[in-house]
């Protein structure tokens, strides 16, 4: 290990390097790729999954998983569109209230009864979709945001030509970085992921931290859904299916280990952007069937995880 000091660095920042490589190659290959407009598009399209993946980063660092984020994202969008008739505050309040409720249920079930996160959040995934169907007349009704509502500005407005959701994403990632590395909550998250038993013995507030983690994951997913609804001016019920998988892929590609105890938000951002750039490139090529995007994303995931696992094994040997 001593003669390979670069290994942990590759594992940690591999996704950033791969992202940079892909962007550089794409810029030289496709004339239409490297433009301000195109980058702005990638940024705004990636901002919604990025916010979801940020919450997932905390969950995965703590050794858990949150499959319910796709449902909560969709719910957040629909109730925000529904609430926007009473103003922006009501829209955001409803979205965060409902998603917070889901986060609390996840967190309390996981932390108190110590059920497997995989199965608890699988159940809330189903429950969330059920609730979504029941408030939209079995998915047949789409709530629209009033045309003159300030709420739409949250999704459509921009500062210096860059959309609000992008700015918000940047701020959220900065805050999350500080929380993760500079606060007790963040340190407890790492400790729980490393060894929950040890964290307990050290007297860390395991229960409270776990509830907080799942609560933030759900709140971020709901917020992202609400912003997306503001951008689309409507609460589209079918969005968010499979979003949990995109989020998990992004987090893992970003170098956060699914076994918990290690990870960082920067990598997640690179992971989300990598998925966004792949999608953008496939659109650029144009002649390629859009199904190729899934194939390439799947391949990237396999390669990245394999490399991480192989390097990880070397390091521990």
């Amino acid at each position, binding site marked *: 290990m001593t003669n390979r000091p670069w290994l942990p660095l590759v594992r940690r920042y591999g996704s950033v390097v791969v992202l940079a490589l892909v962007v550089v190659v794409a810029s030289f290959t496709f004339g239409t790729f490297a433009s301000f407009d195109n980058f702005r598009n990638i940024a705004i399209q990636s901002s919604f999954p990025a916010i979801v993946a940020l919450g997932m980063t905390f969950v995965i660092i703590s050794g858990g998983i949150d499959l319910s984020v796709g449902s909560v994202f969709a719910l957040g969008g629909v109730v925000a569109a529904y609430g926007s008739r009473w103003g922006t505050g009501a829209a955001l309040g409803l979205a965060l209230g409902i998603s917070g409720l889901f986060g609390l249920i996840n967190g309390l079930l996981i932390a108190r009864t110590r*059920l*497997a996160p995989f199965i608890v959040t699988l159940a809330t995934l189903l429950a969330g979709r059920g*609730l979504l169907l029941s408030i939209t007349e079995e998915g047949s009704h789409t709530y629209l945001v009033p045309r003159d509502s300030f709420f739409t500005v949250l999704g459509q407005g921009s500062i210096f030509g860059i959309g609000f959701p992008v700015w918000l994403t940047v701020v959220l990632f900065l805050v999350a970085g500080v929380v993760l590395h500079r606060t007790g909550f963040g340190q407890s998250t790492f400790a729980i992921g490393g060894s929950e038993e040890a964290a307990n013995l050290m007297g860390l507030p395991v229960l409270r931290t776990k509830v907080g983690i799942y609560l933030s994951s759900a709140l971020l997913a709901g917020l992202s859904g609400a912003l997306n609804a503001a951008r689309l001016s409507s609460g589209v019920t079918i969005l968010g299916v499979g979003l949990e998988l995109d989020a998990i892929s992004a987090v893992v590609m970003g170098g956060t280990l699914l076994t918990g105890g290690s990870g960082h938000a920067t990598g997640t951002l690179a992971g989300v952007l990598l998925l966004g750039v792949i999608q953008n490139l496939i659109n650029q090529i144009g002649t390629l069937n859009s199904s190729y995007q899934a194939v390439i994303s799947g*391949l990237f995931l396999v390669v990245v*995880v394999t490399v991480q*696992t192989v390097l990880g094994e070397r390091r521990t040997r």
Partner: protein
Amino acid sequence: MAEQRMDRARMIAWLQNYGVYVAVLALLVVNAIITPHFFSVANIQTQAVQVAPVVIVALGMALVIGTEGVDLSVGSSMALAAAVLPLYLGYGAGVAMTIAVGVGAVAGLINGALVALVGIQPILATLALLVGGRGLALVIADGQLKQIENPALLSLGAEDIAGIPILVAFALVLTLGVALLVKKTTFGRQLVAVGDNRVASQLAGLPVRRVLALVYVLSGVFAALAGVLATARLTASDPSSVGNLIELSAITSVVVGGTPLSGGRIRVVGTVMGALLMQLLRATLIKHDLPDSAGQMIQAAIIVLAVYLTRERAA
């Protein structure tokens, strides 16, 4: 005090073992009373045909979960099988089905290699194929739905033997086969041992890697077979929707059937009952005009309850 605790532990153990049977029985009794024509031959056949693909996928999933793994890619394996099937129907239904099931085996082998050889966690390894597999299926089929006109293949989805639809017969035979595999074969015992304690199995000289890889191959084969049968029943190859989210139904069936996620124990008949319970629940709600949304929320509650009960045993 101690006696009370014993009683509670006994009750929970009993619920774990027989809860799913009691629930299925209760739903049947309730339906016999409140739902007209529930026990007509036609309805029983419909219910059984609808649940058969889930049962087949869930059987493979039960084996995977028994090794403390999970296979998220089953729906995509179904889609791949469905996409490949019409390409080779020119050579006859038998050849096309064999190739389709072979594709499932290859998909499973990829999962198995990633899990057993590289050492990637099952969720991640199979997530990659879940994402990529359906995309590949759509690329193969060019995003098109293709009508199936091969009579031999169509008869699999439409005909019955002595009143038992062929689809259901497949599910029954596979259930029996998997039950025997788990109880009576060396491979079955090795599988449970690996799920119970992987390190000990390794130290005891069991072929842990081979067992793990084979389990994912079996799961892929079962899923592909379910994809072929679902295609036969639909009379069309539809890789964009066949098997969508079936991994959730399959995992639910396995867990509700009393197989713990922590591995080391496989309940084959329980798994079938778990699938049946969810199917009956949905059918009951539909027949009484209750919305799908209620069904999903009830399903969620049942999952949590089932896992809560299996957890008690482990504790």
